[in-house]
C-alpha cells in the first residue's frame, strides 16, 4: 500500500522557476503518466520524487510521510532511467543483484530473487552477459529487473522507451503495463509521447511549462480537454482549433452548422474539433480546399484550408483516397456533440 502526494511542489534554479506549484494525489497501485513537451519540467518533477533533485518549495509525501529531506536510498523507490544506466562493468546478474548486495541480503536469497526476476523478464539465458552484449530491448529489461528485484514501494520511469525502435517500443509498453498490473506497485511514468501516455496511464498529468494543464483519466483528457494545449497535445492527429466569430461564423464567413451552439461568452471563441469528428457532406457551405492526402491504411488524413480563408484543417476520412480520387474541395459537417469550445485568450475550456 503506497500513496504519493505532492503538495504545491515548486522548483527553481536560482531565479528561474521551472516547476510552478504541482499538487497531485496518487493512490495505491495507480499508474500515473506525466506527459508534456520537452523542457516542460516533467523529468525534474520525477527526479524530485526520487530525491535526485532538491525540492525548492512544497512537500512530497510517500505514505503520508514527508520525504523532502530523505536521501534517495531511504525512500524505497526504484527508477528506470532513459539511458537505462546499467553498470557496464558488471554482468546482468550483478546489475540486478547490486541493490540486494547493498542491503546485505543472504547470498542464497539474492540468487533466488535474481533468478525469479530474470524468469519474469525472460532474461534467464543472459545473466552472465555484460550490458554491451545485449540488444536495446534486453538492456531495457535488465533496467526493469534492477528496479523490480528490490520490491520497492514506488516505480519511477524516466522516458524508458524513447531509445527503442517503434516496434519494440509498443512491445515493451505492453510488458511494462502487464508487469505493473501484476506487481501492483504505484508508478509514475514520464514521457513526451502522447500515445504511450494514453495507453499506459490509469491517469495522465499533462504538464506545460512547469504547470499542470490537466489531470485525469486518458478518456477524460481525450473527451473533455481542459485547454487548447491539452486538446492539441492528446490525440493523433491533433485536434483542429478554428477561431469562430459571432453567429457561429468560421473565418471564411460560413456558419459552422445550425446544430452547433456556442456557449454564452464575452471574449473571442475557438472551436475545437478532432479530424475524426468531421463528416463529409456535399451539401454543406463549409468547404475544405484540399492540399494533401496522407494514406494511413484504414483511413486517409486530408489536409487543407477552409475555402475563402487561410485557416488550416485536417479531416480523417475512412478508406483510402488520393488527391486524384477526390474533388478539389469537399463539403464538411462538424459533429455537434463533438465540438469543444475554448476561450481564445486564455485557451481554457468553456
Amino acid at each position, binding site marked *: 500500500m503506497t500513496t504519493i502526494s505532492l503538495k504545491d511542489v515548486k522548483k527553481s534554479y536560482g531565479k528561474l522557476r521551472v516547476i510552478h506549484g504541482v499538487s497531485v494525489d496518487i493512490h495505491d497501485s495507480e499508474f500515473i503518466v506525466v506527459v508534456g513537451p520537452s523542457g516542460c519540467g516533467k523529468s525534474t518533477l520525477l527526479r524530485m520524487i*526520487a*530525491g*535526485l533533485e532538491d525540492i525548492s518549495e512544497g512537500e512530497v509525501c510517500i505514505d503520508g510521510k514527508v520525504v523532502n529531506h530523505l*536521501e*534517495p*536510498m531511504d525512500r524505497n*523507490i*526504484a*527508477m528506470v*532511467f*532513459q*539511458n537505462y*544506466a546499467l*553498470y*557496464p*562493468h558488471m554482468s546482468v546478474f550483478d546489475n540486478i543483484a*547490486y*541493490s540486494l548486495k*547493498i*542491503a546485505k541480503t543472504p547470498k542464497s536469497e539474492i540468487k533466488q530473487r535474481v533468478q525469479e526476476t530474470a524468469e519474469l523478464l525472460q532474461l534467464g539465458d543472459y545473466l552472465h552477459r*555484460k550490458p554491451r552484449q545485449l540488444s536495446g530491448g534486453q538492456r531495457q529489461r535488465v533496467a526493469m529487473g*534492477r528496479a523490480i528485484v*528490490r520490491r520497492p514501494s514506488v516505480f519511477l520511469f524516466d522516458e524508458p522507451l524513447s531509445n527503442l525502435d517503434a516496434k519494440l517500443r509498443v512491445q515493451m509498453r505492453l510488458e511494462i503495463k502487464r508487469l505493473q498490473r501484476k506487481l501492483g506497485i504505484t508508478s509514475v511514468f514520464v514521457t513526451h509521447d502522447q500515445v504511450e501516455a494514453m495507453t499506459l496511464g490509469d491517469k495522465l498529468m499533462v504538464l506545460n511549462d512547469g504547470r499542470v494543464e490537466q489531470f485525469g483519466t486518458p478518456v477524460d483528457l481525450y473527451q473533455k480537454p481542459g485547454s487548447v494545449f491539452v486538446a492539441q497535445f492528446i490525440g493523433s492527429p491533433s485536434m483542429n482549433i478554428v477561431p469562430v466569430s459571432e453567429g457561429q461564423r468560421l473565418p471564411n464567413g460560413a456558419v459552422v452548422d445550425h446544430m452547433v451552439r456556442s456557449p454564452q461568452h464575452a471574449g473571442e471563441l475557438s472551436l475545437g474539433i478532432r479530424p475524426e469528428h468531421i463528416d463529409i457532406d456535399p451539401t454543406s457551405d463549409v468547404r475544405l480546399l484540399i492540399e494533401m492526402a496522407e494514406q494511413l491504411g484504414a483511413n486517409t488524413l486530408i489536409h487543407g484550408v477552409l475555402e475563402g480563408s487561410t485557416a488550416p484543417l485536417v479531416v480523417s476520412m475512412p478508406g483510402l483516397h488520393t488527391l486524384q480520387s477526390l474533388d478539389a474541395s469537399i463539403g464538411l459537417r462538424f459533429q455537434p456533440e463533438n465540438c469543444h469550445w475554448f476561450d481564445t485568450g486564455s485557451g481554457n475550456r468553456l
Partner: protein
Amino acid sequence: MEKRVTFKGWLLPLLLITPQVVVTAVFFFWPAGQAIYQSAFIPDPFGLKSQFVGWGNFQFIFTDPYYLASFKTTAIFSLSVTIVSMGVALWLALMADRIIKGAATYRTLLIWPYAVAPAIAGVLWLFMFNPRIGVVSWYLDKIGYDWNHVLNSNEAMLLVVLASAWSRISYNFLFFLAGLQSIPKSLVEAAAMDGAGFWYRFRTIVFPLLSPTTFFLLVVNIVYAFFETFGVIHTITAGGPQQATNIMVYKVYSDGFVGQDLGSSAAQSVVLLFVVGLLTILQFRYIEKKVHY
C-alpha cells in the same frame, strides 16, 4: 576492399614520417647506441683513450652493493611518489567533482602547480624544510621534532618523495577529474537509488569505471618517478645522505659526471633502458587487459 585511406606512392608518406624518425634517431637511437657501445669500455677520465672490457662494467655494477641498493631505493621512491601523487590527486578530483559553486576557480588553482619546473619545486621544498632556516622545520622544532634531512636518510627520502609527488598532483588531478566527468551521471544516480552510499558507490561503480585513466596514470607516473625527478633529487639531496636517495637515474649522472666513471655510467644506462622497456611491456601486456570492461 581496403577501407582505410591509403597513400598511392611511397615518397610522400616517407617524407611525412621523416621529422619524427630524425628526432627519434638523434635523441634516442644514437645516444642509446652510444651507451651500449661505451658500456663495453673503460675510458680514462680525460676521454683520450679507452680500454675494451667486454661485460666487465656489468660484472662490476652487479657486484657493487651501492648499485644494488640503488635498485631498492628506486623501487621505494617510485612507488611512494606514484601512490602519494595519484592518491592525493584522486581525492582532490573526487572533491572537485562534487562542488558546484566556484568550481572553475578551484580547479584552476589545483592545476597551477603543474607549471612549476621540477628543479624549482625542489628548491621550494628545500627552503621550507631547510634544517636551519626552513619554515616547516622551525614549526617542527616548536612541537619538539628535530628535522634534519641532511643527516637522516628516512627524512631525506620523505622530502624528495613529497616534492616529486607534489609537482605531479596537478597533472594527475586533471586526468582524474576528466575521467570522473566522463562517467555518466545517471550511473551514479542509479547506484544512489539502489541504496549505495558515497564510498560504496566509489568502490563499486566509480573506481572500476575510472580504471582506464588510473592505468594510464600509473604508467606515466612510474616513468616520471624514474626519470623526470632528477631535478628534484639534484636540488634537494644530490642523492645523499649516504646514497639514501640515490635513485638509478641520478646514479647514472653522479657516477658518470661526478665520479668520472663513464664506463660504469654507460652500463647503468643500459640496465635502465632494459628496466623501463620491461616495465612498459609488462604494464601494457598484462594490466591493460584487465582494465577494459
